[in-house]
């Protein structure tokens, strides 16, 4: 990963829409399943694609707390939206996966979900950061997750820099965007304007560089690079939300009994939507299943959520029986204890939990309220 950082920032390449499509074709030819954004059921999801024409061309997503709608942009942009309810976690850490097969005779087989070469198209800065967070959680040891490890091995990442942050985005304040950080193979900045439409591309790995050469991408001109830079500079001015991360962990640790939790628990439905759309939430549970004859038993793992009542169940009852305690667990984990556990925030600023919360609870607002209330209490 560190080595990839060094590679970034060398040459800029130019891709027109046709060459971008060739990039997808070349990845497929190399044996990758190419996965990218597509429109489904009124939202932009991630699924396998064969060509650039399947991308949500000319669409943008209008987002707000508990609000998501697609709209026409009036141009032909391939990536004129931000993030939807899916994240790449779905492919790297599948929602339901078989871990173990045990036969009555005693044969034990561990599973890793199967190897698959996957190319992710359109990975945003926040999402690249989320993958790096999951790397720490699931590969950092002392024990390594076999499924994530296997899926992660063959991933090729085509990142896209966000020239137009969404209404719920706050990656800038966390430092995970709007430019995609290290870890990509190729990064793209899309330039759409009066009669122009192209990408400025950079390689983040030799594999990425080889691919750009392979499709015959030429070096970008100074003018083309500066068009892309102008858009990225402007992007920095378009953010509407931010999270004040200064002393945040300590703030949350000092305020475990903040009245803000009582208020937010009145609204929170404990529906677990936020944890399912979150690109870093990694909690899972297991199910044991046997076939009808009882000769074979399997252990399946599926996503779980700290908002579920039985998540903390031990004999005698659940440790966190109130919604207040479950919201507090989630918020303090994302923004506090995660740092102690893995050295990074558990939040990458993608805003999904705000958009997909049925009652529009906003993590940035709740954190700000906790900060405000502490000041009020201490000056009262």
């Amino acid at each position, binding site marked *: *990963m*560190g*080595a*990839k950082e060094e*590679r970034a920032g060398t040459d800029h390449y130019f891709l027109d829409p046709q060459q971008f499509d060739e990039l997808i074709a070349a990845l497929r030819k190399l044996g990758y399943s190419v996965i990218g954004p597509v429109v489904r059921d009124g939202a932009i999801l991630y699924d396998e694609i064969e060509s650039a024409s399947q991308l949500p061309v000319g669409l943008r997503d209008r987002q707000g707390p508990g609000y998501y709608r697609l709209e026409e942009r009036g141009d032909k942009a391939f990536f004129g939206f931000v993030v939807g309810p899916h994240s790449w976690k779905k492919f790297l850490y599948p929602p339901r996966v078989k*871990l*173990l097969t*045990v036969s*009555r005779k*005693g044969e*034990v087989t*561990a599973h*890793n979900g199967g190897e698959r070469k996957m190319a992710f198209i359109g990975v945003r800065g926040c999402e690249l950061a989320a993958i790096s967070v999951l790397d720490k959680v*699931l*590969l950092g040891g*002392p*024990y*390594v*997750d*076999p*499924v994530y*490890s*296997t899926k992660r*091995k*063959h*991933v090729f990442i085509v990142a896209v820099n966000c020239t137009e942050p969404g209404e719920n985005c706050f990656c800038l304040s966390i430092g995970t965007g709007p430019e995609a950080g290290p870890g990509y193979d190729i990064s793209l900045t899309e330039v759409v304007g009066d009669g122009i439409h192209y990408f400025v591309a950079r390689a983040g*790995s030799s*594999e990425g560089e080889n691919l750009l050469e392979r499709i015959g991408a030429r070096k970008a001109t100074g003018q083309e690079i500066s068009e892309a830079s102008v858009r990225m500079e402007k992007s920095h001015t378009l953010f509407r939300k931010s999270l004040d991360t200064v002393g945040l962990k300590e703030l949350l*640790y000092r305020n*475990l009994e903040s009245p803000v939790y009582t208020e937010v628990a009145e609204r929170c439905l404990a529906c677990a939507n936020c944890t399912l759309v979150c690109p870093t939430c*990694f*909690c*899972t*549970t*297991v199910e*044991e299943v046997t076939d009808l004859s*009882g000769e074979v*038993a399997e*252990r399946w793992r599926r996503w*779980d959520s*700290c908002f579920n009542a039985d*998540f*903390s*169940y*031990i*004999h005698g009852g659940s*440790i*966190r*029986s*109130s919604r*207040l*305690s479950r919201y*507090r*667990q989630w918020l*303090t*984990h994302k923004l*506090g*204890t995660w740092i*102690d*556990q893995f050295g990074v925030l558990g939040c990458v600023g993608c805003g999904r939990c705000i958009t997909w919360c049925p009652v529009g609870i906003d993590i940035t607002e709740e954190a700000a309220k906790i900060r405000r209330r502490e000041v009020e209490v201490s000056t009262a």
Partner: protein
Amino acid sequence: MIAEPSLRPIGGLETFKMEWYRVVGKARETPDTFTIRMKARGNGEIAFEPGQFNMLYAYGVGEVPISISGAPFNGQLIEHTVRAVGPVTKALASARIGSNLGLRGPFGKGWPLKEAEGQDVVIVGGGIGLAPLRPAIQQIIRKRERYGKFYILYGARTPSDLLYKRDLQNWRGRLDTQLLVTVDKGDEKWRGYIGVVTTLFRHIKLEPNNTYAYVCGPEIMMKFTVQELKNQGLPDDRIFISMERNMKCGVGICGHCQFGPFFICKDGPVFSYSEVSNIFGRREV
């Protein structure tokens, strides 16, 4: 050098794999609690630290975390004490002699027995909380000359809820160990102390800067025990408690056992009280 994704190793295939252990003995401790003695299929010694736990698997039913409660004889046997309260623990408790159970482990951090050498040790158990303390007691007794004064305080609800009755008799018979046992509610045959385990502290006088305390039991019991230890002047970093939370994986991946910044499975289950004093005893953390 550029780290190519293709060079990233695939790992973790052993993470969820288990070994089969044969059930070679079973002792009924209380009406719903059993100590299961198992032997590894090979002839290797079973290595673990007192205070660690294993994930035990009953075929087709599932896997649960269970503290190691003893290692008798030559290190080829291992014991777990299981209270039959859920589907998996019921299946484990009903495992027949000669049948096989799956085992993954050992996991977590145990009691700091090395650190306590040359010092006095007080062990405080509540109910089934004595189980993870038993291997520590066994080890201290085995290496008795390495430790100073040794106290065991044990409380259970009723005389029939007391675990390891034969051990209790042996420990009580030792001149180098002070065992005090109390029950919340006696019966017609009970001649010992009546009251919660913390009432036993009036019978002992600890040397606070020369004593390690290992505590396990229900959280409320540990909370008041810590208070008693502090009343006797023990510093927080000489008090150790063993925590319990829901666990699905045992290896820091499933997220269930979080306790503030800690994963009980890998950072615990044994914690120094100084590590957790700001969150321990807080409701619903």
